[in-house]
C-alpha cells in the first residue's frame, strides 16, 4: 500500500559507516545486471548478423547480402505462416482478454459464491498443465467435435490454434485482472452509485475503464505467448494453418535458410517500432489529460 513517494525520499537519507562495501556491492550489481542484459541479447544479435548471410545455409556464413530480406518479404511460403501466427495470436489475445476480464472481475468482487473457489483451482490446474498434455488431449477432442459431432468450425486450423493458445492465456488474464480489481478503490463505484448510476452504468463508466489496462496487458501477454507456441501448435494444426514457430521448427530439422533469420529480424523491428510509436502517442495523450494519469497512479501500488 505504501508507495513510490516514500522510497524516493528514502534514497536521500545517507547511511554513514557502511558506504564502501555498499558501493562495491552496487558496482558488482551493475556489472552483473549489464552482463545479464548482454546475455539476453547475445543470440538475438547473432541472428540479426547472420540474417545478412548471402549463403544458402543460415549457419554457414558466406558473405554480406540483403537478398535474405528481399526473399523474406516476397516468398509466400514464409509469409503465410507469419500471417497464420498473427491471426491466431490476435484471436487468442481477444478471446483470453474477454474471458479473463469477466472472470477476473467475478473472482475479485464476488465473495459468497460456492463455485468460484473451484474455478480458481481449475485455473491453477490449467496453468500447471504442461503444453504437451494439452496438445495430446485437444487433438482427439477437436477431431471428435469437428468430425463426429459435426461442428465443422473445429476443423479450421486457426480456430484450433486460438482455442489451444487461449487456455493458458485466459487463466493468466484472469489473475492479472483479479489483482487489478482487488486493488481498485471501491469508493469510486459507491460514489457512482450515490450519484444514481445503475450497476450496468457503473460497470461501464467506472469499473471497466479502470481495469482496461490490466485486461489489455493480459491480452498483450497472450499475444506473445501465442506467437511462441510450438509444441501444441504442431500437434493440432491442419493444412494451411502452420504457424511461424512450427515452420521454423520444421526448418530447424531440415534446412535453415537465412530468410528465416531475416523474417525474424523484421518481426522484431516491427514490434519495437509499434511499441515506440504507441509510447509516443501515449506520452502525448497523458500530457493533454495529465490529471487522469495522476489519478490512476495514486490508486496503484
Amino acid at each position, binding site marked *: 500500500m505504501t508507495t513510490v513517494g516514500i522510497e524516493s525520499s528514502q534514497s536521500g537519507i545517507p547511511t554513514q559507516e557502511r558506504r564502501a562495501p555498499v558501493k562495491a556491492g552496487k558496482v558488482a550489481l551493475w556489472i552483473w545486471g549489464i552482463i545479464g542484459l548482454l546475455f539476453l541479447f547475445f543470440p538475438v544479435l547473432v541472428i540479426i548478423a547472420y540474417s545478412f548471410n548471402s549463403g544458402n545455409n543460415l549457419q554457414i556464413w558466406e558473405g554480406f547480402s540483403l537478398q535474405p530480406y528481399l526473399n523474406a518479404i516476397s516468398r509466400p511460403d514464409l509469409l503465410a505462416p507469419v*500471417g497464420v501466427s*498473427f491471426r491466431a495470436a490476435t484471436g487468442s489475445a481477444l478471446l483470453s482478454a474477454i474471458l479473463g476480464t469477466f472472470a477476473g472481475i467475478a473472482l475479485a468482487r464476488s465473495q459468497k459464491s460456492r463455485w468460484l473457489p473451484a474455478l480458481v483451482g481449475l485455473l491453477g490446474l490449467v496453468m500447471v498443465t504442461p503444453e504437451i498434455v494439452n496438445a495430446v488431449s485437444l487433438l482427439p477432442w477437436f477431431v471428435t467435435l469437428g468430425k463426429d459431432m459435426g461442428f465443422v468450425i473445429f476443423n479450421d486450423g486457426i480456430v484450433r490454434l486460438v482455442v489451444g493458445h487461449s487456455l493458458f492465456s485466459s487463466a493468466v488474464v484472469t489473475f*492479472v485482472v483479479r*489483482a487489478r480489481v482487488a486493488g481498485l478503490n471501491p469508493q469510486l463505484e459507491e460514489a457512482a452509485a450515490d450519484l444514481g448510476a445503475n450497476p450496468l452504468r457503473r460497470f461501464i463508466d467506472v469499473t471497466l475503464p479502470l481495469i482496461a*489496462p490490466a485486461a489489455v496487458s*493480459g491480452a498483450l501477454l497472450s499475444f506473445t505467448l501465442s506467437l511462441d507456441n510450438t509444441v501444441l501448435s504442431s500437434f493440432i494444426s491442419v*493444412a494451411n494453418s502452420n504457424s511461424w514457430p512450427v515452420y521454423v521448427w520444421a526448418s530447424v530439422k*531440415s534446412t535453415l535458410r537465412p530468410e528465416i533469420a531475416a523474417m525474424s529480424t523484421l518481426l522484431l523491428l516491427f514490434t519495437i517500432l509499434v511499441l515506440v510509436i504507441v509510447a509516443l502517442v501515449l506520452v502525448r495523450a497523458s500530457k493533454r489529460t495529465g490529471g487522469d494519469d495522476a489519478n490512476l497512479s495514486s490508486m496503484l501500488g
Partner: protein
Amino acid sequence: MENRPIRMLVPEALKASITRRTALSAALGTAALGVLAACSPSGSAASGSANKSINLYTWGAYDDPEVLSDWGQVTLGSYDSNEELIAKLVAASGTSGYDIVVPTHQFIPQMVEAGLLEELDHSLLPNMSNLDPNYMDASYDKGNKYSMPKAWGTTGYVYDTTVITRELTSWADFWDAAANEASGKTSLVADMNEIAGAYFLANGIPTNTTDAAHLDSYKTFITGVAKHIQAFESYNSTTIAQNGRVLAQGWNGDARRGLLDNSDQSRYKWVLPSEGSTLFQDNWCIPTGAPNPQGAHDFINYVLDPAVSFRELEYIGYNTALTGIQEKAEAANLELLDMIFFTQDQVDNFQRLEITSANEQLLAIFNSLQAAAG
C-alpha cells in the same frame, strides 16, 4: 487472498500489471494487435478461387521452392517420419486439409487399407508416361492406383576422413567406427526402422525380422552403443557442411548436399555399405478428403514433366525416377553423380523396409536408446 497454490504461482508475478508502465505496455499491445490484425494476409480469400492452389504435406526441403512457385500457390507442411504423417491423417480422419502427401512405399498398403488415400485419376496424369517402368507397378501398389513415384534413395553414411583415416566400407565398419574414432561424434537418422536396419544388415539379419532373439540382440547392442551417439539427425547436410560430425548415417541426397556445401568437398567420404542398404521410394499420393484433387493431379502431372523433374533432382539430389533422367544429369555434369545414381550391383543389394508386427517393439527399443544416450 485465499490460500490456494495458485496464489503463490501467479498473482505475485502479475502484480507487475498493476503499475503505470504496464498500463502503458498494455496500451501498446492493443495498438500492436490492431496493426498486426490489419497486416495479416487474408490467405484463404486469396487462395480460394484458382485450382492452382494446394496444400502439400511432405518431407523437409524436399522440393525446389522455385518449382513450386512456378506452378502456383503451394502451401507446405512438413513431417519427419511416415508415422507422423499417418498419425496426422488418422487423427484428422479426412479433415487434414492436405491435397498431396508423400509417404514412403512400405506405408502405402496400410494407408490404403485404412482409407487414408484416394485413387488417382490417370487420365489427368499424361506425364506419368515419363516415369521409368522400373519404379512403377510395384508390389505395394499394383497399377499405381494410389501413388506416383516422387523420388527414391538409400541409406548409407558419411565420415570425416581427417579423423577416421582408415577406409570404411560396411555397416560393420560404421558401428565399429562409432564406438572408436567417432565416439560421441556420431549421428543416426531419426528413424527407428533405419537404425534397426543398419544393425540387422551389419549382422546378416533380414531387415524385416520379427524374431524375438534378433530384436533382443538389437536392443542389447544399440543400448550399448548409445553413449557414442551425439544426435539423431535425419537432415544432416548443414552439419556435414560445417564439419560438425565425424560419422553420420544419412540418406544419399542429404549427405550429397552436405558434401557439396562443405568448403572442402573431399573431407567427407560417402559409403554405400557392402552388406546392402535400405531403399526407400517416396510417392505422390492424394489423401482422402483432399479439398482440391484437381489441383493435386495438375501439380503431380507438372512435376512429372522431364524439365521440371530435373530441376527437382538438381535441388534435392535424389533420383526422381524418370526415364532418361540419369543421362540428362550426366550431360549436365552434375557433381557427385555416384551419390544419386547407383550401379546395377548396388541396386541389387538394396532392401526395401516393410512394416511388421515388430513396429511397436522397435519404438520401445528406440526409446531405450534415447534413455541410454541421454
